Structure formats: structure tokens, C-alpha cells
């Protein structure tokens, strides 16, 4: 099942009244949406508020979502409109539509400017998480490290990874899972003990 089809199933369930399904979409897209909205709004706390508002608006508009576009495209458009309305209400200038488009948002991954807008606290935490993830990846056996990087960084399918690594698809699936579990194991103390934990 493709990523888009997974979203479609979650949306269909949410449309039938399953709020838990919508929460899974929130889990999945919260950081991507916040990353997009941080191009409009500099303050991290405000970014979170607008991101939250965008998700609520999306939930309310869910009955009208027909799946003509991908869910995240639709969500990002709602997010951009929410950010613009927020800035206008605050008497601030909203970027024009040509400055940030939803189509651009789809391919938007990361930029150095994002790191500049984070507060020292969030920068520290983000750095801590990133360092934990990266250091764990560096310590992984080579076959696990290669598999997870091909998947997450290169966005390759299991089939392509299997060809590249000359191994069965089932082995790729196992390697990626083991890599994720190894990283998750290192993250658990960090995520579970901090009072001001941010993730």
C-alpha cells in the first residue's frame, strides 16, 4: 500500500468519525507542516499554535476532502491559509502567494533559514535529538546503516534497495526495521525523561 493510499485510508476512517485515525495523520505530518509554516512565522511558539489551528481546520473541513489531491497537499494549503490569516489578524504582512506555494511546499524539505528561527532551547533539543539519531546511525552495522539511509535520505523503495544491496526484499525490510529500533532505543531515554521534551 502506497503512502498516499495509507493517508487515504486514514482520512476515510476519520471521515467516518474515527478521530484516532486523524491523530495518526497529526503524528505523521506535524513536523513537516510546522517546518513549512516556519517560513511564514518566526516565533516557534506561534508556529506551533498555527500548526495546531491548521490541523483543527483540516479536521473540520475533512467531509469536503474528496481525495483529488494528496492529503498532505490539501493540508499544506490549509496550513498556508491559516498562517496568512494569522499574520493578517496580527497586523503583519503575509507572504504573497508567489513567495510560498503549496506545490513548492510539497517538495520543501529543509533549509538553513529554519535553524536560524529556532529559539536556543529548541535548537539545543533539536540538536540533541539529531545527534542521537546520527551517532546511533554511525554505530549501526554497515548493512543496517546503508539500508536506512537509502530509505530515509534517498527515498528509495525496498525493491530498489534490494537491487542496490544485492539481497532479498525481505532482508531490506528487516534491516530497515532493525535500524529504526536501534535508533528508537537510544531516543527513548531522551524522550521519556525530559520535562521540557520537544519532539
Amino acid at each position: 500500500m502506497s503512502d498516499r493510499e495509507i493517508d487515504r485510508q486514514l482520512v476515510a476512517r476519520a471521515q467516518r468519525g474515527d478521530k484516532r485515525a486523524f491523530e495518526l495523520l497529526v503524528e505523521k505530518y506535524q513536523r513537516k507542516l510546522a517546518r513549512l509554516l516556519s517560513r511564514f512565522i518566526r516565533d516557534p511558539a506561534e508556529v506551533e499554535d498555527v500548526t495546531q489551528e491548521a490541523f483543527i481546520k483540516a479536521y473540520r473541513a475533512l467531509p469536503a476532502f474528496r481525495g483529488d489531491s494528496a492529503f498532505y497537499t490539501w493540508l499544506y494549503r490549509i496550513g498556508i491559509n491559516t498562517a496568512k490569516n494569522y499574520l493578517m489578524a496580527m497586523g503583519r504582512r503575509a507572504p504573497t502567494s508567489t513567495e510560498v506555494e503549496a506545490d513548492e511546499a510539497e517538495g520543501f524539505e529543509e533549509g538553513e533559514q529554519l535553524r536560524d528561527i529556532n529559539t536556543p532551547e529548541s535548537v539545543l533539543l533539536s540538536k540533541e535529538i539529531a545527534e542521537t539519531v546520527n551517532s546511533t546511525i554511525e554505530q549501526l552495522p554497515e548493512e543496517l546503516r546503508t539500508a536506512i539511509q537509502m530509505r530515509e535520505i534517498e527515498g528509495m523503495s525496498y525493491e530498489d534497495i534490494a537491487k542496490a544491496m544485492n539481497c532479498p526484499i525481505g532482508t531490506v525490510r528487516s534491516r530497515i526495521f532493525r535500524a529504526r529500533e536501534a535508533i528508537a532505543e537510544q531516543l527513548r531515554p531522551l524522550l521519556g525523561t525530559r520535562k521540557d521534551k520537544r519532539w
Partner: protein
Amino acid sequence: MKDRISALMDGELDDTSASQLIDSLGRDGEALQAWRTYHLISDAMRDGRVLSDGFTARVASRLMAEPALLAPAGLQSEPRKWFALSAAASVAAVSLVGWLAFAPQREARPPQVAQASVTPLKKQPAIVPLPSATNDYLLAHQGFSPRASLQGMAPYVRTVSDQSQESTK
């Protein structure tokens, strides 16, 4: 379970297994935690931005206050499509019946045929004498004719005309 969640988020699970797993994600806390952590790892490998830990909980809290979406639309388009098709079929059927019933009646024209030089034989129409009570019978029962209500006075006029012919004979 977790290995299947890992495959699910990579879009590498078959449809049946994926549907079952999505079902269980809403019930199993450990599965949900894995879904959450794996997505965090994925995002962290691409970009370090994080949100506060309470973000999802705050959204969930606001969702609880939202009315449930009990009038599905959008992706639930199959039942709507069938409803629309059946409604369209019903309208079409009613329209057809209405058109057949209320369309102006035309006298049937004989089919046009090629003119031949052959002189047609003149045939005298057969004259069948009607019983004397026929006109009275038709007049009394013209109300039961399906055309009577649609054609107004036409049947009645025809009957009177017929009677007029009788009287001229």
C-alpha cells in the same frame, strides 16, 4: 507488529495487512508509540525541527471537543455515486412516462413510398353498419377513455360529429 509498522510507513505493506494494521494502530499503545517514534526518526534524519511533546495531546484534546464527523463525504463517494445514479434513473423513468402520457397525439401518417405510374385501384371503403346504440354507448363511456383526460373535448367533439353525420344520412 513493529516490523510491520516500519514497512507500513514505507508503503511496503500489502493492502490487507495495511488495513488490519491501521485498525490496530488506534487500539494498541505500543504500536502507536512505534508509529510516532519512527516518524520522528524519519523527520530527524532529514531536518532537526521538533515540536513540543504536548503538541499531539493538545491537538487531540481539541479534537475531542469537535463534533464527530458522522456525515461522511469526500472519500466515501461510492454510496453517493450509486445514490446519484439511482436518482437519475428514477428521474429519467418519470420523464419518459410523462412524455409518453402528455405528448401531443399525432395522427399516424402512412409511410411514404416511391410513386409508381401504376394507377391504383379504387376501392370502396367497407361500410359496416353500426348498431343504433353505439353513439349513446360511446358518449356515455367516453370518460373512461385514457385519451379523454388528456385531449380535452376531442373525443366528445368527434362523437357529436359522428352523430351529425348519422343525422344527415
